[in-house]
């Protein structure tokens, strides 16, 4: 049956490269302070892209603005063809974007299990609980502990694990390796690889350049509330000098 064969050939090329996320001229404010001055970036489905930049460059604010978690934002954030700039965070989440915040955001008044199950399943296609537990077996025996009684590494795993069930396909991970021991950084790195292999699209904020270059296909560099450079993985080494001026390393 020839028709079936063509149907299996996948989406036409222009659809396949349609961006998962397209951000244009994104600005954000905290009260009177104008933090983002026009962020532009694009992420294609299945890509793993990092956001680099020195302390205070606006990386966290960018992720929070994408989710609508800032008091005021302007510009354009298109998630799979849907403009989200006027939507409240809970509506944005339902379109398939989820965040693992910088401070991890584990709730002290919830057990590990309650933390893990807190984000509701919003769309189909999320991991089931068992798959999440396989990814992070450490959590299994700590299910009834208070969420914040976990070690830093375990809290980070919990923070990642809980957004995998929701059905979100675009994950915003804010410095998941910050302050963790090298073995745990490795584990988190391997996990992020797995997630990419599972088809998640990932925007990763990272300070650790070595870790970032080992894992991502593309890098955006931020400075003072703007994206100032875009570096594909194969240009990463040769771009080191200009990267280092931006990052102030």
């Amino acid at each position, binding site marked *: 049956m020839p028709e079936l064969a063509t149907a299996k050939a996948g989406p036409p090329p222009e659809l396949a490269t349609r961006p998962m996320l397209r951000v244009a001229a994104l600005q954000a404010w905290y009260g009177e302070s104008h933090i983002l001055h026009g962020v532009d970036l694009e992420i294609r489905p299945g890509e793993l892209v990092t956001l680099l930049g020195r302390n205070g460059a606006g990386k966290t604010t960018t992720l929070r603005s994408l989710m609508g978690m800032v*008091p005021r934002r302007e510009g354009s954030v298109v998630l799979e063809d849907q403009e989200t700039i006027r939507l409240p965070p*809970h509506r944005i989440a339902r379109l398939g974007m989820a965040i693992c915040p910088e401070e991890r955001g584990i709730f002290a008044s919830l057990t590990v299990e309650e933390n893990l199950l807190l984000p509701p399943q919003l769309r189909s296609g999320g991991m089931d609980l068992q798959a999440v537990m396989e990814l992070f077996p450490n959590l299994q025996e700590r299910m009834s502990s208070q969420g914040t009684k976990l070690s830093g590494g375990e809290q980070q795993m919990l923070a990642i694990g809980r957004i995998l069930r929701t059905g979100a396909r675009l994950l915003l991970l804010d410095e998941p390796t910050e302050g963790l021991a090298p073995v745990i950084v490795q584990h988190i790195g391997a996990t992020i690889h797995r997630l990419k292999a599972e088809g998640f699209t990932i925007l990763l904020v990272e300070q650790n350049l070595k870790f970032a270059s080992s894992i991502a296909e593309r890098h955006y560099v931020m400075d003072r509330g703007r994206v100032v450079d875009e570096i594909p993985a194969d240009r990463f080494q040769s771009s080191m000098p200009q990267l280092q001026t931006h990052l102030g390393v």
Partner: protein
Amino acid sequence: MTTVFGVPIQALFSQLLVGLINGSFYALLSLGLAIIFGLLNIINFCHGALYMLGALVAWLLLRFFDLGYWPALLIAPLVVGLFGMLIERTMLKRLQGLDPLFGLLLTFGLALVIQGVARNYFGVSGEPYDVPEQLTGGRNLGFMFLPNYRAWVVLVSVVLCGLTWFVAERTRMGAYLRAATENPVLVQAFGINVPRLITITYGLGVALAALAGVMAAPIYRVNPLMGADLIIVVFAVVVIGGMGSILGSIVTGFALGVIEGLTKVFYPEASNTVVFVIMAIVLLVKPAGLFGRTA
């Protein structure tokens, strides 16, 4: 006659019962205050006025619609709860992120308005409200006489407090509530409609106060100022229990009612102040309250 420390045992038990009754109302009101404070970060000063409104609605239902205690027990919390949601949506919502002082001032003003309007139409003398006939009378327990209606009030209050605790600590809605109390923005980013959760929670806290008001009507009469005195003691209860602690407000509510009752037996002069003395001591020793989490 049996006596304990020179006090007739009958007097002791009847004051204990009065203490438990008062404690039932303290617990129901401080529970609502605790939940509202946790989620909205607002000290809901109009809680006492809404409690009074519950009793008043019950009285109006009887007077103008011939609907007695049992329907009132359902309708009054519903009406007042909806009124509360309206207050939240139109006014309290705008105070989000501001100093809690603004919320206190606004709700204090609302309390004055609600009480003032009620006073204008109903005077201050108060209207009697009959005990429903199914709950008249009482039983002799040997050591004391237990009026059925009072036993009912204590029972309902204990059940409602237990139920609220269960919902808050053991259900999904409760997990949302606790999480949103800690970090509302993140909870909303997980796809939960936090503004709606806040409105519903405020409505439920207020409905609890209104229900307490209906239950109080046959005991204290329906009086526009019935909530004004009560709320002061209830605030002391919340401070002692720990701002925002659900279990703390329940336990403290009942305990302080009983302590107040016992003080009336052993040292009547202090019975009106004992709660505040305890509050002062707790604030000195454990400023976050007995059950409060220190940040």
